[in-house]
């Protein structure tokens, strides 16, 4: 093709910008307040987040509970509606991790890892269970949204980066702060089991 005028698209950057711009509003929206009153688990947060993110834009579709590798599901997958292509996955986490039930207790470190064979949080991206498109091809960049119920961002950053080391991962895999106002934005890069790298965008919102 002899095209000379088109320039590289910025669809992905626009998606990231959209998420960053809308997240603070989401947390302060009525929708979110209602959710906090009646619905409390990550799935319901995800549906509300997906709906909120689809307001006022034509481009992206946020779909909750999308299949990944094997029986794994990601909390939200984002599609470019025009090209019908999955661009990004988002895993949602609540901090501190809810206790779970007696039968199914949840690991405190779930944001980063768990001893469970199917892994947790960042670990699932590293293992390749999460962070793939519908054809199971790896996505280079993915996201984690954390609903922080108590404590400051700095406290969680320290805790999480400690868990990264506890997991015996390279210290380069620790989270780096991008900014902490009005929401927290952090970035990390991890080595997947497959040998490739995955970039994670972390968005932290306070929901106290």
């Amino acid at each position, binding site marked *: 093709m002899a*095209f000379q005028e088109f*320039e590289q*698209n910025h669809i992905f950057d626009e998606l990231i910008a959209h998420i960053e711009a809308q997240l603070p509003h989401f947390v302060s929206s009525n929708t979110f307040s209602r959710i906090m009153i009646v619905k409390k688990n990550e799935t319901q947060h995800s*549906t509300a987040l997906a709906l909120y993110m689809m307001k006022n834009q034509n481009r992206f579709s946020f779909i909750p509970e999308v*299949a990944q590798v094997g029986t794994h599901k990601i909390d939200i997958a984002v599609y470019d509606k025009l090209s019908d292509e999955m661009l990004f996955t988002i895993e949602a986490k609540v901090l501190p991790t809810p206790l779970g039930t007696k039968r199914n207790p949840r690991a405190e470190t779930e944001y980063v890892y768990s001893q469970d064979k199917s892994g947790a949080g960042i670990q699932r991206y590293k293992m390749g269970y999460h962070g793939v498109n519908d054809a199971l091809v790896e996505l280079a960049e993915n996201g984690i949204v954390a609903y922080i119920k108590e404590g400051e961002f700095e406290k969680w950053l320290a805790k999480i980066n400690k868990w990264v080391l506890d997991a015996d991962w390279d210290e380069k895999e620790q989270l780096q702060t991008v900014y902490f106002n009005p929401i927290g934005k952090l970035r990390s890069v991890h080595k997947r089991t497959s040998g490739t790298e995955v970039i994670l965008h972390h968005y932290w919102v306070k929901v106290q």
Partner: protein
Amino acid sequence: MNTTFFDFTKENGLVFCDDIGSAKNKAEYLYLSEIQKIGVTAVFFRRYYRENNPNPYNSEPSVCIFQKDDSFFDSSEHISLHAKLWSAGRNEIYVINGKTRVDIINARKPAKINDNQLSLKSLRLTYGPATTTYKDYRFSAYLFGSGTFWEQSDFRGQLDEKSSPYIFLLEHLMATRKKSLNTANLALKATTIDKLLVVSILIKFLEEIKDDNGKHTLKTIYKKYAVENFSDALIKKLCVSILNELANEFNGRIFDKFTESEKNKIEKADLSLLADFLRADIDINSRQLFIWKQYDFKYLPPEVISAIYENFIQAEAVRQNGEHEKGIVYTPIHLVNLLIDEVMPLEDYKLFTQESFSILDPSCGSGVFLVAAYRRLLQWWVLNNSSTDKIKYPPKKTAQKILEKNIFGVDVKETSTLVTIFGLTIALLEKLAPKEIWDNLKFRDLSQENIKESNFFEWAATAKESNKKFDLILGNPPFNIESGKTKNEVLNETILTRLDFKHNDIPNGNFALHFFEASMLLANKVCLILPSNVLLYSRSSQKYRKQVFIDFTFNKIFDFTHLRRLLFHKAADTPVVAVVVENEPSINAPIEHIVVKRTIGSDKHLKFEIDYYDRHPVRLNWAIDESKFFIWKTNLLGGGQLFYLIHRLSLLPTVADFIRQKDEWMEIRGFEGGNTLQIERQDRIDAIDSHGEPVISKNVTISTSNLKDKFMYKPPFIVIDQVLGNKCLSTCFISNDNQYTKKPYLYYSRDFIGISAPEKDKKTLKKLWKTIRENKVEQLNYQLSAIAVSSSCLILTETDINKNDILGCPYPQDMTDLILSEQEQILQKDVLNYYIHCGKAISKNGAGALLHAFVGKDQLEEFAITFCKALNSVYETKGKSTQVGFICQRPLYTICQFGFGKINGLNYEYIDEMDGRETKINTLFSNVNPKKIDQTIESLIKDKMTNSGAIFNKIIWIYTHINGYDCMILIKPNALRYWLPSIALRDTGDVVNHLKKEGF
């Protein structure tokens, strides 16, 4: 000799018979080898390509060209040639290229009777000197290549279903059958008459296979009995004697299907009516001259003869019971051909190098699938054994062996197995010379091993126990248990235990799906016609759907739901799909959902036209996800981004959720039928008018066996009709201080859904009502929401929606969630204005004709604006944007030029080049004033349209850079369905994907 015909070229599909080596694939090679016998000079093929492969994987002979003298037209030789071409049913038109004149003739109609003579004059589409006729754009390669030839307004009326060789013969047979049954002195049972008719057709076929000296296979027998033909034998009451002779000659019990008692009755019967029919001098109905001369049996596909019998079964059921036989439908031949090409493509001939490819039809009916499959096996054999120089047909013993080793069928009806065997026999004889047939051709009795009369499930259980496996199972199983039988008789626990299906929880105990499950036990690949609602659309089938999509690999689902009213003639009004399934667990491959639309070709039972926009790949994880159950329905309604809209709406709380959380609110269907309770002098809502006002009957008696909660009829309440309204859902609000009734209660039947609330919530209720009947462009219309999830509306019926469809509509707390984005508005508008009519008639006054109408300037401009806006949303920069250069409408197609470059640098121009339509004699390009379109672009278009496989695509993109602009030139047919704004969004998506691949 002239070697230039229209804009046909070697590259775009023309092959000369003396240059057979230039055939592009085996289909062309095979056709040319066979058609050479009747003196064809050249054939123009419609070619089918796969992406990134320059060689067509399949071809169809659209146009045959004959070099003849000027006197040939309408001569007896011409009528005989026409009989061959029409009977074979392969070509659209043919050309007689005379010395000074060219005649172009419709190959889809039989010769007409004119003054007791057959004539072809009325079938001539045009004629004249070569210099002008070959410039007539109405015969352009693009039209044949893209399958749109018959869609031209000039020729639409020239296609006629009743003129197909099959329907034509069928109608005469049915008339004979009816008259025979009504003839008191015939005294034969219907079953005997049916058998006689079928045998007669087979004998007629044998009579028509003649050698070079005009001798046919049966000459010796006829000589012995001093009869001219079978018709003569019937008059002379020698029918049984001839049948006995044939039974001895051919073995195989083909001609030995009558009991002694039947034979006695036949001997005594006056068979002159049947003799008349076979002599064919007289049309039974019109008493006009008929018609065997219009046919050439040697060229008539044997499936045609097979298919006829299914109609006998239906006709008999109607005669005896006044209704069609449940579960038995006639499988149209064009559907059989589509599926055979899909599961046994000609190009896969190497599968048959060992002469082993076993096929089973589990409910073979008259054997149309088996006959077509057997013919394909014979073609495979030919391709495996021929060289470029010499075509080789299987010797009779090989042909017989192929049949006996590979073709299997089961049917519960003896008559069906009989007809299947007839059909297969004809397919076998078709390729043999008379001498070969006569010289000791002995049939094996196929009913012993191959074509079994049996309950399929019993047969399958035994087959499974003996580890039988077939390469392919294909067919059209019954959707209901046959009349007069109970489920226990056909499919009891013992059989089910023996079969031990992989999935036992079959939705609603669907009978056809039992055939599917049993087939999956016995075959590597299965292709069955199944009800579409239960497989794809019904919510209650989700669990089963998920299991089968995971455990098996569904490669393709051809969805004929839009054709529900016409696919099976009048025998059924059932939406169906044809599934192509591999017996392997799915490996996460998408399922191709092909939504077959109504076109002139499919409406006339000629062929299906499937184009790019009909294909919807469905991600496996979406296909099995209950929360995305509507994916199939959104595809049915045009696909593309519609899924995303409906999915977004599905995340919102529903009307039902809203009612549930309100105190003292209720929703219910109105009172049921019956008459155990009668309440006199009441007012009742009978309908809702388009203004949202109730139509009320006053002081009537309410008869019901279940009134339900009386609170429901006490205003205030909302009533919603379960039939889709005109521009919005049909609903009315009845206030407690209403003007409609003075009585405390206002009743409504189960045809309506009622939502009632306590008086204090009247305002909230009214707000809900207003939302339900909203039809603003920028807001969700509840019609769309209900249709998109309904498993009845546009599937089983045109307009019925049920309670769950209505109460499942979104009703969020934040009403801005119901506001549609610009692109969502486009989708809503196209579904409600256009796609909703996909299942309706496309004839002149049919609502479905809208989609096929000639696109107008305004619509093209709306398309172009939508495209530019959508592409700009991705690629526009500060100084550069996508703009429309020109829209040029030509008689055959429209060209749109889009350019990406300096903002406001392109001056839009609409170019009307439709003037060619007036004169009708114009070449594809010479009518174009070259000044109108940039020369560079014109030559690009010309190059693309004439010298490559592109003409075989209905949608052509040309990407190039001209004068500082990255140009995207789009060429499509003129029908509106290609130019809807929602299609512009799909096109934009394709361009975006294309650009992404190129690094932009």
